[in-house]
């Protein structure tokens, strides 16, 4: 049943998304592709939409998948499910487990998880870039040109402003590049 699947899938994502804004992306890709809710391209589009609208990526993705799979009810269910673990953990920690956070063993495991997820995100980003260029089938010339252009923009921005480009301008620039490169 779709509601049960949405519940299970987004509960998994909610439980294992440690760290910053991007750490849920590998898990979301895993779960969403596994259930066949969205294609790889649709996930990428939704990441862009999420970056340009308010709210954490995993909450946005849950709302979107829930809505496209099972309408308003599915969308409410998926959104509430994905925040449930975070909610329960904060309630538990502030009421009962304050000491647990200072526990060395607990900290060691959390550090391990965080280090591992850094590697996982790095691999996910690298694989997405390679996939977009067509590494799995045949190389797509336009995608290669676009990738080179995006990489140049990011590196130049960093050199000139000495900070990382924020997501929204980068998304806008790559949208314009897409219209130009795929339009001609």
């Amino acid at each position, binding site marked *: 049943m779709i509601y049960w699947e949405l519940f299970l899938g987004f509960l998994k994502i909610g439980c*294992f998304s440690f760290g910053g804004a991007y750490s849920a992306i590998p898990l979301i890709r895993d779960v969403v592709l596994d259930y066949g809710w969205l294609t790889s391209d649709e996930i990428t589009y939704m990441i862009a939409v999420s970056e340009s609208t308010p709210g954490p990526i995993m909450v946005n993705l849950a709302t979107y998948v829930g809505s496209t799979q099972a309408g308003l009810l599915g969308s409410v269910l998926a959104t509430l499910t994905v925040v449930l673990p975070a909610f329960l953990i904060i309630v538990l920690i502030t009421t009962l487990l304050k000491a647990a956070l200072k526990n060395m063993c607990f900290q060691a495991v959390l550090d391990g998880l965080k280090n591992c997820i850094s590697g996982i995100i790095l691999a996910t980003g690298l694989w997405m870039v390679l996939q977009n260029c067509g590494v799995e089938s045949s190389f797509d010339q336009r995608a290669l040109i676009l990738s080179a252009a995006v990489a140049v923009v990011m590196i130049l921005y960093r050199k000139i402003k000495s900070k990382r480009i924020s997501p929204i301008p980068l998304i806008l620039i790559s949208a314009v590049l897409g219209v130009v490169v795929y339009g001609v």
Partner: protein
Amino acid sequence: MKLLIELFLTFAKIGLFTFGGGYAMIPVVEDNCVDKKGWITHDEMMNITVIAESTPGPIAINAATYVGLRRGGLPGAIAATLGVILPSFIIIYAISMFLEDFLEIAIISNAFKGIKIGVGFLILDAGINMALKVSRDAMAVGIMAAGFGALLIVDIFSLNVSSIAILLAAGIISFAMYFIRGRRQR
């Protein structure tokens, strides 16, 4: 009841202005909950950041639950958490109704082909940044490299292994290493 409504509305406002999630929302929460409302202290705000870092879930949700719980108990936590997700819920729900039709327009579809490539680089950039922050310690770097290698192999060979399994393995190894290292030091 008044407090619950105030928590709900304040966090709805915070939810509306946190694009992309993550650390961008820390100053917004601080401005609203510490400076304007005095609901929590600056120290508590630091605590929230640390707790959010080491527990699952976006920091926006963690902060809302924490502040709500401190000010209004469990009902407060529920009001603040629902408030912080409501704006993004409404926006994405609206988008979900028309995104597919929208993508059929040629120029939009080309723009999204470009965006797809941009997002790949965005995630790669975030990954590089996170990897650079991993402490220079053989064990930390080893676990990161193992996570990187394992997921890349899974992707390249389209293996049916979940990244959750890789994470669990990392957790178990860290747990074991904690005891092995502890014993050596004694």
